[in-house]
């Protein structure tokens, strides 16, 4: 691109994405952001100066050819842009919404050096939505069946990616999912207002149409073990069971009625639709004053979900300061707009209940910041004598997840880390057990959708190689 043109393009202002008004949206579960109109998308895409060595693509964990798909949008070829995305990313409508672009592609985009980076995530979302809404999802040509069969355990982003990649190469794929719907965290964790469930359902349906078999209500380790799958006709197994075991804080009162793990709270509300109780049968305690403990995406999703159940007040309690919060900046901003309150440098020490064992308050202590820990962040230390009480009738604990024990319990020859994550090779996804691969949160601990998908892609490549050559 000639420098003059590039200069002109750099002058185009970043296009804002229209959103529901905060006062309005906090009363419903509809998606917060509406997405670009075609005109906005074209304008935004024209801000890209088509770098020869695009830094953005290097910042993308799955290496999407970003300038290429952005150029297609600038030229009005929206469906082609979506297909381009799908060459490297099986779930662009999901990633366009939930990826932390500000830490990946958009962080390094050159236009961001002077002004604001190209809105790569919003463009990704636009192209994928356009394709889906215009019914132009193309089913790729499936090569002749190889006769090989792969069992994918877990229907989250890692498992779905493996399934899609392998079915496209002619292998038979069955996804075994413990819950009644595939999608993993995308359906039970991330709320409707951030990622509408019909988008995940459409992606799953697309995989089905390509020939992936989805078997829900199938808990591997219980219904069948990995060894039984391997001896029962599957040539390889991929484990993508996620980081599903909620941690608690081990402080007094944690089992009072009204204290939830974020997983339980979000599952009740999102997957089971407790926000439509009694239309849907699953209840949740809505509460008058809600506290959420933690500072990550899960805590933020819990807090913003709680806000939508109309309590008087929702407060996030985080032991470090705002700058250290791992949640996405955009979400913190959204939460604040919706009336979320924050107590930084604060940590709960005890939950207090009434005579019936129902939560009525939380006792907290103020934290100071000490010397940096191994993550480079300053370690929070309790300030003695600073204890204080906050009234609350619901508390949601979002302090992280560990690995679920069901598969290791029944597969003793799988190697585990000291946190019970499965040990797998970073490049190939191979575990120490022949024919068994793993990736996503079960290997990394809680990470991100795109990293889980990247793992899935690499594992699919090496599964394909293993199935073709037979060499372990």
């Amino acid at each position, binding site marked *: 691109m000639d420098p003059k043109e590039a200069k002109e393009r750099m002058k185009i202002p970043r296009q804002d994405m229209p959103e529901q008004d905060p006062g309005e949206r906090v009363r419903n579960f509809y998606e917060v952001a509406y997405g670009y109109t075609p005109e906005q998308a074209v304008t935004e895409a024209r801000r890209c100066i088509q770098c020869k060595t695009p830094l953005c693509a290097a910042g993308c964990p799955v290496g999407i050819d970003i300038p290429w798909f952005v150029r297609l949008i600038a030229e009005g070829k929206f469906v082609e842009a979506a297909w381009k995305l799908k060459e490297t990313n099986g779930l662009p409508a999901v990633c366009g919404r939930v990826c932390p672009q500000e830490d990946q592609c958009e962080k390094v985009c050159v236009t961001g050096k002077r002004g604001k980076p190209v809105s790569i995530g919003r463009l990704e979302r636009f192209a994928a939505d356009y394709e889906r809404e215009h019914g132009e999802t193309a089913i790729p040509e499936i090569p002749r069946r190889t006769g090989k069969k792969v069992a994918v355990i877990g229907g989250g982003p890692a498992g779905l990616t493996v399934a899609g990649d392998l079915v496209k190469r002619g292998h038979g794929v069955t996804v075994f999912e413990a819950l009644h719907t595939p999608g993993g965290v995308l359906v039970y964790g991330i709320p409707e207002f951030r990622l509408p469930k019909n988008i995940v359902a459409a992606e799953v349906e697309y995989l089905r149409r390509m020939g992936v078999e989805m078997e829900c209500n199938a808990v591997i380790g219980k219904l069948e073990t990995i060894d039984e799958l391997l001896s029962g006709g599957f040539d390889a197994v991929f484990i993508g069971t996620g980081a599903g075991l909620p941690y608690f804080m081990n402080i007094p009162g944690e089992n009072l*009625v009204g204290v939830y793990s974020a997983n339980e709270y979000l599952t009740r509300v999102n997957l089971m639709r407790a926000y439509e109780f009694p239309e849907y049968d699953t209840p949740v305690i809505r509460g008058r004053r809600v506290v959420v403990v933690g500072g990550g995406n899960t805590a933020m999703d819990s807090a913003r979900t709680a806000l939508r159940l109309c309590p008087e007040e929702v407060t996030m309690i985080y032991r470090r300061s705002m700058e250290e919060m791992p949640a996405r900046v955009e979400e913190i901003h959204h939460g604040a707009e919706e009336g979320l309150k924050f107590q930084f440098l604060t940590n709960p020490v005890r939950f207090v209940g009434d005579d019936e064992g129902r939560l009525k308050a939380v006792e907290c202590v103020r934290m100071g910041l000490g010397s940096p820990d191994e993550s480079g962040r300053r370690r929070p230390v309790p300030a003695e004598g600073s204890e204080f009480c906050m009234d609350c009738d619901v508390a949601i604990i979002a302090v992280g997840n560990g690995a679920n024990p069901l598969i290791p319990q029944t597969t003793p020859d799988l190697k585990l880390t000291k946190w019970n994550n499965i040990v797998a090779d970073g490049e190939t996804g191979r575990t120490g057990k022949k024919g068994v691969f793993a990736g996503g949160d079960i290997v990394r601990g809680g990470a991100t959708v795109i990293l889980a998908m990247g793992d899935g892609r690499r594992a699919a490549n090496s599964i394909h190689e293993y199935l073709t050559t037979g060499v372990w």
Partner: protein
Amino acid sequence: MFEIKEKKKLAHLVTLLRVKAPRIAEKRKAGQFVVLRLNEHGERIPLTIADSDPVEGTITIIVQEVGKTTALLSNKLEGDAILDVVGPLGRPTHIENYGTAVCVGGGIGTAVTYPIGRALKEAGCKVVSVIGSRTKDLLILEDEMRSVSDELFITTDDGSYGHHGFVTNVLEEFIAGKRKIGMVIAVGPVPMMRAVAQVTRPHGILTMVSLNPIMVDGTGMCGSCRVTIAGQNRFVCVDGPEFNGHEVDFNELIRRNRSYLKEERMAMEEFVYHEGARCYERRGD
């Protein structure tokens, strides 16, 4: 979809259902349970597998109508289907030859005691069973329990059948009779299990109980089913459902099981108002 092959009324508000679920039937062991969801709007509830027939590919569940979901389930007919059934979940009962094993079943809990009693019998135990209910009409599985027991005692709270009193009265007498007991397994309402554990504690008799907390996923993902066991938080769906009764914080479990009383009542009222009449009509009650 999981088809209901057979339906039988066992007692007032207690129904037995035989459900087609071949893979679960093949795998399931005594003490395990399923989580089911009736329809798209349904909640997920755990139910013990009372029996299974791997040849026919069916599992047997026994339901007591206590709320909307169990009422809906009890109102299903043969040939109807359940949307989701997942299992077998939980750890199987640890079965070995304990010498004399006492199986205590209270109310619907007998549905859980029965397969365990049978497994203990098959392992060579001398099985002594004590089953009880509020009143005669609520007693279930008497014949089945008799068939797996060397001795069977029956109690009713109102004295309408068997011993007048509680299962714990019989258990106390039995212990006083100086007969050596290898282990006690007790399943029933939480206060009953708590009482059994209190009776056996001074004698140091191994006492297992099968817990029934509120569950959502049943796979260890949510923590809804957590209970305090020997001061530690444990998830009943993956670490249980059976625990040493002397280590369980029963009072906490009772309180947690009351979490949604208000909501459950509301759902039930709403259900009876809108659909109750239609359901009962269809069933011909």
